[in-house]
């Protein structure tokens, strides 16, 4: 049926620049439509709860773009979402859904803090990259077991990474209540992040720190990955696993590597939040970045530009929502609702990007074990 037509195949969609351009404009107008629809439904919810939607949305816009401080908030929220988004997009393109970025961000923050404390007396030029690497490695370590379980036993990665998120939450709670907690602290937290590893501010009076530029680097790396040989073969695996295997692409390698890449990206975010935004490690350091990063990857169709736009949109919605809460007293959960509506709106099949991607996930989907023969 129409499903097949819309999907077309990979080549057909990239056949001519002309059709590419047409695709872009249709997907652009449907995207704008979905955003408007989500905002309208959000507005209805505001009306029903006795709030003025115009006041709410203008407070939100003001909190997202109104001043250099709010712009900084938007960017420093968008950057981690984009990085997690790019990481999970690599896995998504290979047909894997990892929901565990949340736990990998936590692991990355712990790794970055421990590395930074180890290099406390080193020059910043050593301490900063070392901590970034430490964060990325801890993020990778946190996804290693789910990756092996998926490759070896076909254990569903959504559920196993979710369990590892629980482990990470318990681990950080333990660490910040016991060994890493400063003797004077009352609430669970770490010592301040070592000053030689702190990422400075780009604009004073904001929270726009240099770590935000890591998102640009990761974005470029993602563009390179998609165009590389290996990226292509992982794409192929996502599109058609049995064809890829018959061409000699190792399924274990694709599964393990793509999950490790997503773990490294999430771990890097842990570093960024600890060294840049918060300059200390807290229990809630991952907030909901891992979860929304996956949503950003879905919305962006796991493409470089799409993830960037989705991350900026979500960053703006989140910083705007918090500003709205403090200025108008309207709960910031409204931005969660709008974000969920956006995802639901995009999930409908007229969004061709999502369909192409979800067909892959469908081709590789396994909850556990083998499908009944």
């Amino acid at each position, binding site marked *: 049926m129409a499903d097949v037509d819309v999907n077309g195949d990979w080549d057909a969609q990239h056949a001519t620049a002309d059709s590419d351009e047409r695709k872009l404009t249709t997907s652009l107008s449907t995207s704008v439509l979905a955003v408007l629809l989500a905002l309208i439904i959000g507005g209805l919810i505001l009306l029903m709860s006795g709030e003025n939607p115009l006041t709410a949305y203008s407070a939100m816009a003001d909190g997202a773009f109104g001043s250099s401080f709010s712009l900084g908030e938007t960017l420093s929220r968008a950057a981690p979402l984009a990085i997690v988004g790019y990481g999970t997009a690599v896995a998504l393109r290979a047909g894997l859904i990892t929901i565990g970025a949340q736990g990998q961000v936590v692991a990355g923050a712990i790794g970055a803090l421990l590395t930074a404390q180890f290099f406390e007396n080193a020059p910043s030029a050593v301490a900063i990259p070392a901590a970034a690497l430490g964060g990325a490695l801890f993020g990778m370590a946190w996804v290693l077991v789910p990756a092996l379980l998926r490759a070896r036993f076909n254990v569903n990665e959504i559920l196993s990474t979710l369990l590892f998120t629980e482990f990470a939450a318990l681990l950080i709670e333990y660490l910040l209540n016991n060994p890493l907690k400063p003797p004077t602290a009352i609430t669970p937290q770490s010592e301040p992040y070592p000053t030689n590893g702190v990422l400075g501010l780009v604009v004073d009076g904001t929270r726009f720190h240099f770590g935000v530029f890591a998102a640009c680097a990761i974005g470029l790396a993602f563009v390179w990955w998609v165009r590389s040989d290996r990226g292509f073969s992982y794409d192929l695996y996502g599109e058609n696993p049995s064809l890829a295997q018959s061409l000699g692409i190792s399924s274990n390698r694709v599964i393990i590597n793509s999950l490790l890449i997503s773990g490294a990206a999430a771990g890097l975010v842990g570093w960024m939040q600890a060294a840049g935004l918060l300059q200390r490690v807290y229990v809630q350091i991952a907030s909901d970045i891992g979860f929304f990063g996956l949503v950003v990857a879905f919305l962006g169709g796991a493409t470089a530009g799409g993830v960037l736009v989705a991350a900026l949109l979500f960053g703006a919605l989140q910083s705007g929502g918090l500003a709205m809460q403090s200025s108008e007293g309207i709960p910031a959960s409204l931005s969660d609702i709008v974000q969920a509506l956006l995802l639901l709106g995009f999930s*409908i099949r007229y969004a061709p990007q999502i369909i192409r991607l979800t067909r892959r996930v469908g081709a590789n989907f396994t909850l556990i074990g083998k499908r009944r023969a």
Partner: protein
Amino acid sequence: MSQLLEATFWSATTAGGLRLATPLIYASIGETFAQRAGVLNLGLEGYMIIGALSSLYVADPTSAPLGFLAGGLAGMALASLMILLSIRLFANQVVVGFGLTILGIGTTGYIFHETTDVGGRARQVSLPSEIDIPLLSDIPWLGDAVFGHSWYTWLSLSLVIVAGFVASRTVFGLQVKAVGEDPDAAAAKGVDVLRIRTQATLVSGFLGGLGGAALMLGSVGRFQPYLTANRGFIALIVIIMASWSVWGAAMGAFVFGFFEALGFNLNNAFVDVPIEGLNAIPFFVALVILTVSARWARMPRGLGANYIPTV
């Protein structure tokens, strides 16, 4: 340490396990129907949390049974979005499921903050009393472990029997299995695939909502954002343990609850071991079960894939 040798330790842990498992039993049984029909509800977490909030907001001014029912209906309302988007409009089940989980968390957070004044009276319900069954509750060990529970637990256990019967001994149960295994063949036999999937998803929404309501009215009593704390996803895991059977789902829910209770109770026996390590026990057990059951679990062939009827 010596506490571990006492019978009361284990009867208390078994009883606590059954109490903690109660919400999971509702949610996992409902989701078993949906998954047997081929529909994966990653939005189960959303159904549960919206059921929890609705049950409280209805039970607070009225009564607990009405609140319980309202919880189920609220879960069903959210599940109807799953039906609209995934079953009728063929959107990817995983994406819609995540969307519904976020929508559930966001909506309940919004309603809670909008209706709760700082320093004002928080909505709450008093927790139910245990129903003691004469004679049976007096049996020395077994009585403490198994028979002193609230009606939410009793209802969940009777539900296991009813649902087990419906799943394996009724036409509806067979149709559910047929559309989940081979929708094309079922359609060729004249089964309305989309209708059966719709009904199974409504069951999942209703029971998911009841699960949230049982958590709220049966053991928590007041709302807080993120109240369900990933229990919806745990329910998805326990279903796998016994290959999508109703009994297996209930058993898996109990196993998880038992180890959760064990973690709490071991804290009294081993004060030196960090509580976080003990709290990790149920999740670790879940991971082991998930891995081991990969050897025998065979998921319904049509699970996760949308059925698009050819007209």
